[in-house]
Each structure stands twice: as structure tokens, then as C-alpha cells.
């Protein structure tokens, strides 16, 4: 190899794209040629500077949330086209309003489909969820620290929902927010699982007494779970699949077997 061969090899050398024979030949030449060594080193250093300094942009949460919403909508739209009269939730709801059907049970928790009279609340819960994602207003108090989020609600709402970070279980706490469900103030706890936001709305329970199970419903591409505990009604909503959302509910309920005041 002679000096005039070197310029063509600089880029691939700098990028580690020379094959081993070429690399060896270049090394041999550089060993004897200070001028070419300087040339290659200068380019190598410059490449390093650019590589180290160039900004790595990460997708903002706002985009992730927006995308989750529009993909769910696109999916729902596709499902509607495939099944014009739809095996969506409406027939399901009708069946549910006839009978409080038990659809599944897992461990000690019984799962029900939500009865039809809850339609407007379910609709409100899903709308609040979608709104929170679209407006880039997922949290008023963005914090993964339960000791920050829990006191934040104090004085803002007449409820003290249990707040536990479930990061160790794969459901990190993202923050909290005030919202309205069914024209009543609600504490919204925001969790995340993988890329999927979960809103857990907590409102004062209308009826006394804790129901024993968790009710579920699929609506507009979102899964909704509902249960009551300690005088509070809980609504969890997410585009997560039902199994994962149920896992979340189970973890949350287990973490709060004794609801804090």
C-alpha cells in the first residue's frame, strides 16, 4: 500500500467497515507513515466528536400517548369494517344487562361484565382517559413517588385514594391528576405498563358496601375495570389487553388490602 491509496480507506477505517485484509494492510502502512497516520487519526477524532455530540432525540411521552390513542382508534375502525354489525361491546352490554353474568374467575376475585346501566359512566371513563392522552395533560403532579402523589390530593379532593408505586411489578406510577367522572370530581392516578398508560379513576362510591368482584368491559378499543373498596369506586382504563389490566388491578388491590385513610 502506498500513500495515495489511503484517502479512499479513511471513511471505512473510521467506521470499522474495512475487511480484515484491508485493515491489516492499512495498519502496516500507517506503522511506517507518520503523515498518513496523522490524516487517519484526525478523521477518527472528528468522527468521534460528531458521534459523541450529536443529539439522540427520544420520542416524547406526548407522542407515545397520542399514538396509543390513534392506533386504538384505527384498530377499532378496522374491526368495524370487518364486522359491520359488530361483535363489539353493545350486544355484550345487552346480555350483561339481562344477567349479571360471571365471565371469569381467577383466584379469589370474581370478574363480571359491567351491567348496561353503567354505560354512561363507562363512556365517561373512557372519554376522560382519551382526553388525558390527547391533551398532553396526563398528570398534574408528575411523580413516581407515592409520598409525593398521595399528599398532593389532600385538600384538592375529598378522597384519599391509596397510592402505591408498582414499578417493581412492572406498573410504575407516573403521577396524579384531578378529573371529573360522571360530573363528580375524581382522583386520577396514572400508571404505565410497557408503553401503555393506565388511568385509575377514584370517586366516592354511590352505594355503600364493597362488591366482591371486579367488573370488566371493553369499550372503543379500551378495557375498563371497575371495583369498589373502602367507600370508593375505582375505574381502571387502558389500551392494555384485559389480562394485563386485570394483573394491574390485582396488584393494586393487593398493595392496599388495608386502604389508607
Amino acid at each position, binding site marked *: 500500500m502506498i500513500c495515495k491509496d489511503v*484517502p479512499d480507506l*479513511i*471513511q*471505512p477505517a473510521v*467506521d470499522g*467497515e474495512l475487511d480484515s485484509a484491508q485493515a491489516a494492510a492499512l495498519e502496516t502502512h500507517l506503522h511506517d507513515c507518520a503523515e498518513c497516520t*496523522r*490524516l487517519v487519526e*484526525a*478523521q477518527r*477524532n*472528528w*468522527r*468521534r*466528536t*460528531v*458521534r*459523541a*455530540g*450529536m*443529539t*439522540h*432525540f*427520544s*420520542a*416524547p411521552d*406526548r*407522542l*407515545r400517548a*397520542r*399514538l396509543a390513542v*390513534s*392506533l*386504538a382508534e*384505527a*384498530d377499532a375502525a*378496522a374491526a368495524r369494517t370487518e364486522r359491520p354489525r359488530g361483535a363489539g361491546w353493545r350486544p355484550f352490554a345487552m346480555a350483561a344487562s339481562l344477567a349479571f353474568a360471571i365471565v371469569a374467575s381467577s383466584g379469589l376475585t370474581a370478574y363480571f361484565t359491567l351491567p348496561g346501566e353503567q354505560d354512561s359512566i363507562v363512556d365517561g371513563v373512557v372519554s376522560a382517559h382519551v382526553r388525558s392522552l390527547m391533551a398532553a395533560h396526563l398528570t398534574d403532579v408528575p411523580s413516581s413517588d407515592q409520598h409525593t402523589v398521595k399528599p398532593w390530593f389532600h385538600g384538592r379532593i375529598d378522597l384519599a385514594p391509596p397510592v402505591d408505586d408498582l414499578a417493581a411489578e412492572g406498573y410504575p406510577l407516573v403521577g396524579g391528576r384531578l378529573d371529573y367522572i360522571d360530573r363528580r370530581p375524581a382522583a386520577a392516578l396514572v400508571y404505565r405498563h*410497557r*408503553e*401503555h398508560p393506565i388511568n385509575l379513576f377514584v370517586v366516592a362510591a354511590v352505594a355503600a358496601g364493597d362488591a366482591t368482584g371486579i367488573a370488566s368491559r371493553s369499550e372503543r*378499543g379500551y378495557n375498563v375495570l371497575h371495583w369498589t373498596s373502602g367507600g370508593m369506586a375505582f375505574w381502571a382504563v387502558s*389500551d392494555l*389487553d384485559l*389480562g394485563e389490566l386485570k394483573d394491574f388491578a390485582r396488584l393494586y388491590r393487593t398493595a392496599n388490602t388495608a386502604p389508607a385513610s
Partner: protein
Amino acid sequence: MVEQSRLQRFNEVAVPHLDAAYNLARWLTRNEHDAEDVVQEAYLRAFKFFDGYRGGDSRAWILKIVRHTTFTWLARNRPSEVVASDEDGDDDRAAAANGAPRSDPETLLLQRLDAELLNRLIDQLPTPYREVLALREIEDLSYREIAELLALPIGTVMSRLARARERLQRAARGSVTPRLVK
């Protein structure tokens, strides 16, 4: 009982590459809001055509769609930026010959170039140069991977990258040297 829906499969395939997709779109559009719009559009397209995805390199699949969507968007909104500013001319060789720093102090100075200035200078490069730099230096794609994504010969990828770095270095020298003289 746990059968994955089409959306769930898509989320598993495509969402892990959201940062890469956004990064590319952000470097191409140079604007965060435009990048978000473009990526959103690209992902909806990808979801629509997901049945056509036959496995394989999912990042390459997504980046190809993002790239296509971005260039379509640029052509519509900023046509002046997508004119082929990449003619592989002979001025490269001359430019490459001038590429080496002239003195060691200057080399040191360029190495300490602050990142903010560097990124501003990259933003001023023509679109194709910004693109190869983002793919090579951030996504760490090989020449071959870039060549496949851009549907170009490997030799062209290599010379485009060389010219991108060279032009950037000239620009950096231009903005750094006056301070050196002071």
C-alpha cells in the same frame, strides 16, 4: 385464551423502534412538532400495512416507512429541502483532500467543540447529509444497512457520509477559527 390482537402484535413489533423513528424524523424535519406529526402518520401507515410485514428486521421496516413518510411530507411542505443536493461531484475529492485539519491545535479545538454548536451546524447541512449522519452515528447502522434503507449502492453511502463529515468539519472550522485568532 391469550391470543394477541393485531394491535398488540403491532405494538410489540413497532413501538420499540419509536425512539429511532422519532430521532430520524426529528433530524430530517429539524422540528419536534413536525417530527411528531410525521411519526404519527408513519406509524398509522405501518399499522395499516402491517399484514404485509413478513418478519425480519423490524427496525428497517419501520425506518423505511418513516423515511418515506417524512420525504413525502417535506416535498409537500418544504419542497426546497428535498432537491437532490447530493450530486456525487468531483468536488468531493478536492474537498476530502482539504478535510484534514491543518494544525494540531486546531484538531484539539474541534474536538472540544461544544455540542450545542455542533448540533446547530449539523442542522444546517443538506437533508441527505443529516440523514446519513443520524443513521450512522445515532442508530449505528452499517454501510450495508444504510444502503438498503436508502436504496443506494454502498459506495454512494460511503462517499455521502464522507462528504457530510467533511462539510461539517469545514463549517465547524469556520465557526471556531475566528475565536482562535482573537
